[in-house]
């Protein structure tokens, strides 16, 4: 992994013709595009179409992005716009030209999108942080997260690790995860204890849009 895996660095490299950097942008944010499309319950071919359009538009815009940090927000609003375009077209076919009220469409309010963008950034940062953990930590956490859950005995035999060490090792791995630079770069996440603050979330959300 390169030293600087920030969105800004990835965008700069992709602009200069670096396909791996582009691939990483796509891998990082495809779940965001995908989840927004799924919110609109579109068919798979429509979703593929929208995804392709969104990425093509981004390719076209690479040279014009002044604030790469705003990329997730741009992807979310662009995806939503393309979804609505497809939905409007589809409902016109179904009802032979009757117009569609925006109220009939799934929730498209700004706070929903904003929340999705924040979640997507957290998820992307967590995946980057997870990928940067030592192999033993990744294996242990994967086993702890598996569904159905593995027993401590199974984990002990597979990793391998003494059953009594699983708890402390889990804590150490999570601490490493929490200290990862990818997570530290997030402003919307409290990595220390304490109450989540809705007020601060909306403040930073506002700043993001500005």
């Amino acid at each position, binding site marked *: 992994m390169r030293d600087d895996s920030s969105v800004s660095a990835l965008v700069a490299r992709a602009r200069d013709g670096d396909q791996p950097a582009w691939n990483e942008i796509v891998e990082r944010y495809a779940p965001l595009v995908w989840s927004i499309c799924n919110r609109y319950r579109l068919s798979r071919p429509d979703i593929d179409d929208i995804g392709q359009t969104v990425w093509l538009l981004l390719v*076209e815009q690479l040279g014009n992005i002044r604030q790469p940090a705003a990329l997730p927000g741009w992807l979310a609003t662009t995806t939503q716009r393309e979804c609505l375009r497809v939905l409007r077209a589809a409902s016109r076919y179904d009802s032979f030209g009757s117009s569609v009220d925006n109220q009939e469409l799934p929730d498209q309010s700004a706070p929903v999108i904003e929340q999705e963008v924040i979640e997507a950034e957290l998820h992307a940062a*967590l995946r980057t942080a997870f990928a940067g953990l030592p192999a033993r930590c990744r294996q242990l956490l994967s086993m702890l*997260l598996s569904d159905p859950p593995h027993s401590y005995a199974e984990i002990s035999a597979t990793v391998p690790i003494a059953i009594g060490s699983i708890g402390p090792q889990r804590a150490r791995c999570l601490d490493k995860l929490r200290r990862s630079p990818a997570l530290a770069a997030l402003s919307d996440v409290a990595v220390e204890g304490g109450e989540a603050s809705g007020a601060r979330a909306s403040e930073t959300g506002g700043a993001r849009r500005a």
Partner: protein
Amino acid sequence: MRNIGDDEQLLAALREALEADEAVPPEFIELGKNAYAWHNIDAELAQLTYDSVREPGALSLRAEAASIRALTFTSAHLTIELEVSEDSVLGQVVPAQCGMIEIQAREGTTATTDADEVGCFLIRPIPDSPFRLRFRTADGSDILTGSITL
């Protein structure tokens, strides 16, 4: 504000993150990666700016006109108009100019046809899956339309 301060919160968030990633089909990600092929190709995207079936009154027109559907794609420099009839698509590049039309299916297959000196081209049969048109001229114009489903 999402709190991942304690271990249970962090583990739950990590689970969500990994699940969100697993939910995305690999082909969907491939489409995104492949879009980069358009980097450094100086193609302009032409967006759909008119679709007859999306205009009010489309129904009454449909009954009378031989043409079933009309679509217009517009880029900064030119316009591609399409008229869809029963078994073919008649296209017109405005301003009129000759060039090559590529019909790009999403799966990656490409067929070509020529736009003549008055900018006309014919696509027959009608592609049965979504496609994009790419129009290129000898003097370097390069236009890619939005996706078309007929």
